[in-house]
């Protein structure tokens, strides 16, 4: 199992397992884990293709991903998920933490990409 998928599993566990010790903190924790998994999955994608892009800023990597792959909407959805996760990974005035449904969608996108 890849590192990115291990991290995703941790995020999934936070959503699905009711655990009083993580009450209330799981949405932000899951968002932090999912964003890291996404960034690692994209790095792995480049490494597997021997393309030295993994040191670029993530934003640039995601644009490259969209340019270089013709396979459907997945790169665009990965890019979109990363944008949404990046919002959830900062404290913004007046915004609440993401919901379980939002997090499940983003985790699903990263899972699909790293499969």
């Amino acid at each position, binding site marked *: 199992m890849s590192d990115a998928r*291990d*991290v995703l599993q*941790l995020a999934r566990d*936070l*959503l*699905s397992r*009711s*655990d009083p*010790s*993580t*009450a*209330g*903190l*799981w*949405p*932000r*924790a899951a968002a*932090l*884990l999912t*964003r*890291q998994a996404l*960034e690692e999955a994209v790095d792995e994608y480049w490494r597997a293709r021997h393309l030295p892009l993994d040191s670029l800023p993530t934003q640039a990597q995601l644009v490259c991903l969209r340019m270089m792959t013709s396979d459907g909407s997945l790169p665009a959805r990965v890019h979109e998920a990363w944008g949404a996760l990046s919002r959830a*990974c*900062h*404290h*913004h*005035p*007046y*915004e*609440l*933490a993401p*919901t*379980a449904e939002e997090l*499940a969608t983003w985790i699903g996108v990263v899972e699909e990409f790293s499969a």
Partner: protein
Amino acid sequence: MSQGELNALALSLFIPRATLEESPFRFIVIDDPVQSMDPARVDGLARVLQQAAATRQVVVFTHDDRLSETVRRLAVPATIIEVARRENSAVEVRRALDPVSKYLTDAFTVAKTAGLPDQAARRVIPGLCRFAVEAACMEAVRRRRLARGENYAAVEKLLTDASHGLTKLVALTLFDDPDRGGDVLPSLRKAESTFADTFQTLNRGAHGLDGPVPTIDLARSAENLALWMRARP
């Protein structure tokens, strides 16, 4: 009329009616009254609700943080409860703290709990600590600028623009200028020997830190930094 003005108009009819002496109900329940309201109006609403609460129990549901931020800033006596729902609608209810204390408590909880594996703690704690410092900066900036009589919308725009980078936000808090990022580290170093290191760890750490992370120590230093940032005049 804008949606926010319509909401305010509706409330100005509903609240007096619902609190008539003739009404048999000694409580009012309001669902999401701050939707599309501008921040100045939220302050007004908090004061109106406080008046109503002198003789009634007032229960308000809301899905953003504005009313609770206002209630804390204006020191309106209120109990704030946070409701979250995991998968399969497992509902959790907890007493809400102010954002800075909440994130710090969360970081300490993750550091001390067996509920999360080490691998997750190492990845999550730096991010939670950074949330605490971000929230502390925003509180200081908002307090300072609103006290100066600045326009609410302008202050929120400034904070939103600065919220994508910790350096900008700290510069805004320390120097009242988000573009003085270069002066952040020297200034932190001068204030307290550990602040600069902590700041740099948090800046990097939201993307995960390599190697072992002294999690409890990091949470403690982040707490010192956050409380100091929040106290900036």
